[in-house]
């Protein structure tokens, strides 16, 4: 099930992505990034975040209103830490017009669909196009097929997800917030792909 395709790392050698309005206090060892989750309602965006941030899963559906803000810091093997400031947006149609409010300045966008619903996969493609048009120029895009535990109801094949991600230079992974499968991997993989600030040596010589 959960399957990730490793794409060529496009991020190498890029400049630091913007970290949002709050003026990211990032340095080479401690990154701070703004991450936005987008996708149709009911695909499990909040569940992914709550699994990642709190290790919880609540099967009762709680419709997100506007956007929720959570943060979580992870440590990578090279002893850098990444603090994700996560905007978990509402998937409801009435909030679509407000999405730029939340993805503006985001260094990472995680676009989520439900593997049991082709409609949500279409919606995900809409968000990819929107971000390619209006998102931060060097934004890291991740395509996530959630609810991978419901494989007997699968209607979007792994191949379709992978192909679409590859065509659009995205990172792809299938997750299950319910079983926690691939949730940490998703965020670790994102962290690895983040553009790093220039080495400290450059800032020593102003």
């Amino acid at each position, binding site marked *: 099930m959960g399957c990730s395709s490793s794409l060529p790392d496009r991020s190498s050698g890029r400049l630091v992505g913007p970290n949002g*309005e709050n003026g990211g206090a990032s340095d080479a060892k401690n990154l701070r990034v703004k991450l936005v989750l987008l996708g149709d309602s009911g695909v499990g965006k909040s569940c992914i975040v709550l699994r990642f941030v709190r290790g919880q899963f609540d099967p009762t559906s*709680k419709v997100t209103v*506007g*956007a929720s*803000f959570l943060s979580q810091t992870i440590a990578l093997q090279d002893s850098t830490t990444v603090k994700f400031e996560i905007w*978990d947006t509402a998937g*409801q149609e*009435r*909030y679509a017009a407000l999405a730029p409010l939340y993805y503006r300045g985001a260094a990472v966008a995680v676009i989520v669909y439900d593997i049991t619903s082709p409609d949500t996969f279409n919606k995900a493609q809409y968000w990819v196009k929107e971000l390619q048009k209006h998102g931060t120029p060097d934004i890291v895009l991740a395509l996530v097929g959630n609810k991978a535990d419901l494989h007997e109801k699968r209607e979007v094949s792994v191949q379709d997800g992978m192909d679409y991600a590859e065509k659009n230079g995205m990172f792809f992974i299938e997750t299950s917030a319910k079983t926690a499968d691939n949730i940490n991997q998703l965020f670790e993989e994102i962290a690895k792909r983040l553009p790093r600030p220039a080495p400290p040596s450059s800032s020593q010589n102003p």
Partner: protein
Amino acid sequence: MTSETSPSVSGDEASDPKPSPEDQLASLALSETDGPASGSPRENNRHNEIESAEEEVQTNSAAPGLAVVENSGEAVRRGRIGGVLWARTNSEPEADGPESPSSSGYAGERGSSSASSAGSGIYEIAEVRDDEVVDGVSDSQAAWVPGKRHVDEDDASISWRKRKKHYFILSNSGKPIYSRHGDEHKLAGFSATLQAIISFVENGGDRVKLVRAGKHQVVFLVKGPIYLVCISCTEEPYESLRMQLELIYGQMLLILTKSVNRCFEKNPKFDMTPLLGGTDVVFSSLIHSFSWNPATFLHAYTCLPLAYATRQAAGAILQDVADSGVLFAILMCKHKVISLVGAQKASLHPDDILLLSNFVMASESFRTSESFSPICLPRYNPMAFLYAYVHYFDIDTYLMLLTTSSEAFYHLKDCRIRIEMVLLKSSVLSEIQRSMLDGGMRVEELPLDPLPRSGSFSPHLGQHTLPTDSPDGFRELYGGIGGPAGLWHFIYRSIFLDQYVSSEFSAPISSPRQQKRLYRAYQKLYASMHERGIGPHKTQFRRDENYVLLCWVTQDFELYAAFDPLADKALAIKTCNRVCQWVKDVENEIFLLGASPFSW
């Protein structure tokens, strides 16, 4: 035919806008309709005694001796004569021939016919059971399960037709937008029927407000391209049902703003349901509050009881934040206000507080983490979105910071951190929790003797109950149930402050069903006191088999009190004076005073 346990006081306002004196007698709304007294300058101060009002009561009800309603169904029957009544705004009332309720396709009547003579009590019980799935649970709010019920039903289901109260939102092309019961999409035919009724009357240059069909009232409210309809057999007054529809419309505006009208200008067949996706819980929780929250008919808000200094501390930090560019800062605990502050010249309407807190409490996601969401305050500006930062400090206590700037999230987050630090340092949050546990005013604690003016209050809201029996013998008469003189419950609304205080429920009004029935009775009392044309009234005393209800309206306050049905009238009146004095004595703790001058 009449099955209401307490007689209708309003008669039928639609058919008979100017009741004769006999009508007033029939409904026994003890009123003082003379111009000079009711509209006079402030000759009555807050402490005028109710005795004087009682004299008016006596003179008005000269005919049958005591000014007490003894369950005559007269007014109710009178209202039933015309099967269907078009409430015309500009022409003679016109009664169509009596129509069987089922001929309209709406057969709600059928299931209830057997209960009609036995009194609505039985029917009421049935409704409580299927709506609220409670029994013996004392907190009606806790027992209520949020979310949409009966999604599998539609207008062909017998069970759907038997529901006591339906609310619908539809578009002027007849497309369903919201239905309390059943799946909107399956109700397309029914919506089209409602739309046809409305446009049929509109085509005649008129407007339909109310249709009566047997026990059912169908109330219509037209708001541009949005139609709202309530079908009810709860015998609530027309005015109350219309106000409920106004609130439902306001709740919709809070989510979408009035600019949704433009979608209908562009495309009359526009389907609005996706725009309201996921908000069923918000509407169902509002509708539920129609049966427990007095704010829905009083148009006032209520505060969590707190020591004056504690509330001041909370207000000071909110004011600090408001000065830094926040439009409104509101700290609440459940539906009770702890403190609220508005930027200069900005004022917050109590209905907006109700709708906003309902929206926040009904949307579970606010509890999971801090959020930033567009919302509209319909009374403040129905056209524009504001942005709300919402954060829960604990399971019941939440902060709402409202701003006009969509970019303000990080600023508001900083504000919240500052507020949280102050609230923790001055132990406001723990005081809030303690107040939640202690509860508010209890009728059993009504002081028997006037408090000394300077009085420092005992721990719980000026509780000075003496262990000895009072000289009046209140206690002996009523065996310790409820408060003195058989006082069971009261609501006091301060007109200046736009705030109310409601006593805690205690025996014998302890089950959710009894509480709901009392609210309905208050609601009816409120409507009859504020009825257009023959009001405003000053006092009303009515007795039926459930309660003695006493209402007293002055320029400063409104008091609604419920007593044991056997309560003595003179003692009840005396007790009401004591309640008012008690409220006055503890107003520092139960009301938000001295806030920035609100001018709604």
